[in-house]
């Protein structure tokens, strides 16, 4: 053919159908990528052929920074990883260090930790619900969710002084005891919360558009979910009954009565239902924790690690010395390495701490649940419509601060 038409050799005639695929870049400034996530999507028409997540836009070298800070200074770094669940991050980190130190945490401190973590879990799920619905097009839910979340942030602020970065848990206990009247305020919130959940259900669960956008979308089977390392609500949405609070109980979760919700559908809808049910379970745990609050110490009996009370510093010489030494030089942590997993709002948050002795860690690594959950995204979006990518990202509930660290 080319010889008859005298086509010059540089114009090669290719005998194949026109290429219908194209590559587009979604993000990093896309509003529904929940931060700065970039997806390289290969699409054919409207369906996704291949997706490659590109992360690292928020990388701030937190794991490097840990090695240059004293153990107690590391707590404030953890706040900034998963900024929707900072108390959970605090807990994972301080418990890992406490494991190395072999500290016994008093009953009251443990109960308060459970209470605060469950409130934080509700707050985190509320942000997920609001933004997930917003991504799919339901704007109203967002305002309802943030109204409720505001109440929880006010509670966290009352206890710790911070709203987004509380750093409330300290190695060996808590920063300080709960303020007076706190139990009443929590009870007030918890009493009103079931009504709010009913409101969310009314707005979304029966909504035909929402159902169509979520049911059967972004499926991942239980075997695949385990193989990809999914954890938390994403794993339970695939029908796997796994909750670290049950599997490897910590800070007294074995004494609480709660259900682990699972859904068998493996899709966006299942992950939605799991989180909706989980909020009710978290409320149940919070109510139980509230009933268990008894007066008592909130710090471990370890004067070389835990800062002394203000009053003791004014009257006791040794308390003053310990205070000075902890602040100026830090405390020595025995050699060793631990990996401490907790059930954060998004899944298994594992904190690996390695100590060579001395006041600074040799290595801190955080296994962020969002990081691992996001790595399974290509598996879930392949073959789906491009509009569903947004729904699937929303259902994973990722926080880029934790992924990039």
């Amino acid at each position, binding site marked *: 053919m080319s010889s008859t038409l005298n086509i010059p050799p540089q114009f090669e005639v290719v005998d194949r159908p026109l290429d219908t695929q194209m590559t587009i870049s979604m993000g990093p400034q896309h509003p529904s990528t929940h931060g700065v996530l970039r997806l390289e999507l290969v699409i054919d028409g409207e369906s996704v052929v291949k997706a490659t997540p590109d*992360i*690292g836009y928020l*990388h701030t*070298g937190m*794991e*490097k*920074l840990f090695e*240059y800070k004293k153990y107690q200074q590391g707590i404030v770094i953890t706040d900034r990883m998963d900024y929707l669940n900072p108390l959970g991050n605090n807990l994972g980190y301080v418990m890992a260090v406490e*494991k*190395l130190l072999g500290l016994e945490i008093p009953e009251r401190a443990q109960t308060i930790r459970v209470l605060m973590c469950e409130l934080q879990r509700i707050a985190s799920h509320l942000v997920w619900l609001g933004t997930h619905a917003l991504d799919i097009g339901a704007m109203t839910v967002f305002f309802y969710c943030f109204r409720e979340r505001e109440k929880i942030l006010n509670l966290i602020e009352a206890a710790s002084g911070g709203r987004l970065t509380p750093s409330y848990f300290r190695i060996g206990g808590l920063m300080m005891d709960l303020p007076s009247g706190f139990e009443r305020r929590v009870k007030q919130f918890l009493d009103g919360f079931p009504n709010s959940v009913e409101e969310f259900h009314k707005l979304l669960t029966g909504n035909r558009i929402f159902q169509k956008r979520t049911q059967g979308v972004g499926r991942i089977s239980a075997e695949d979910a*385990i*193989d*990809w*390392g999914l954890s938390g609500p994403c794993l339970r949405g695939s029908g*796997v009954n*796994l909750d670290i609070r049950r*599997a*490897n109980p910590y800070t007294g979760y074995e004494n609480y009565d709660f259900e682990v919700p699972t859904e068998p559908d493996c899709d966006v809808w299942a992950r939605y239902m799991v989180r909706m049910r989980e909020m009710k379970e978290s409320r149940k745990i919070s109510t139980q924790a509230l009933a268990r609050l008894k007066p008592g110490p909130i710090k471990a009996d370890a004067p070389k690690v835990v800062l002394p009370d203000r009053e003791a510093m004014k009257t006791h010489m040794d308390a003053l010395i310990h205070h000075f030494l902890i602040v100026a030089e830090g405390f020595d942590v025995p050699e*060793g*390495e*631990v*990996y401490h*997993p907790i059930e954060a709002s998004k899944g*298994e948050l*594992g904190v*690996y701490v*390695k100590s060579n002795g001395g006041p600074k860690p*040799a*290595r801190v*690594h955080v*296994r962020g649940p969002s*990081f*691992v959950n996001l*790595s*399974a995204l290509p598996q879930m979006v392949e073959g789906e419509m491009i509009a569903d990518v947004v729904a699937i990202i929303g259902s994973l509930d990722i926080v880029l601060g934790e992924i*990039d*660290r």
Partner: protein
Amino acid sequence: MVTASVPDENNTVSKEKATPSLLVTALQREHPQWIGEIAEAFSEVTAMVPREHIVEVCTYLKSSEEGRFDFLADICGADRGPEEEPRFEVNYHLFSTTKHHRVRLKVLLNESDVHLPTVTGVWRTANWHERETFDLFGVIFDGHPDLRRILLPEDWQGYALRKDFPLRGYEPYSLK
């Protein structure tokens, strides 16, 4: 915890008593070259694995009836410092979604030869963990399907979490 029982002649552990430490001890007896030193501290079990056997050990632990370590929780590297030899550690944190027990496998690497085989064939979740370890420590996972930097830019010089990498980097970074 460990004193509960000892493996019988067949190197198998009775089901209700199968703790991770007994499992790796039994595995060590079966394949002495697979498992080096076994340590238990802070109620966590650490087993040293020579790098050439890491895939076999992982495959075995994943499929073994008593172990069922079907969930790779984490892979993280660690640098012991430029003066240490072997310098690098790669830690694998395994978890079982049915038995709910955990074990840590540790591979030691010399600075002169930072290669080890990938376990992406055992668990697909290893993909990003290994990329992160490569990105921050320069450990090379042979056979990895897509070994690129993941957190830092692709043209980044050096490996940020090595102890000899300065906290603030060598020079202000700018995109080229």
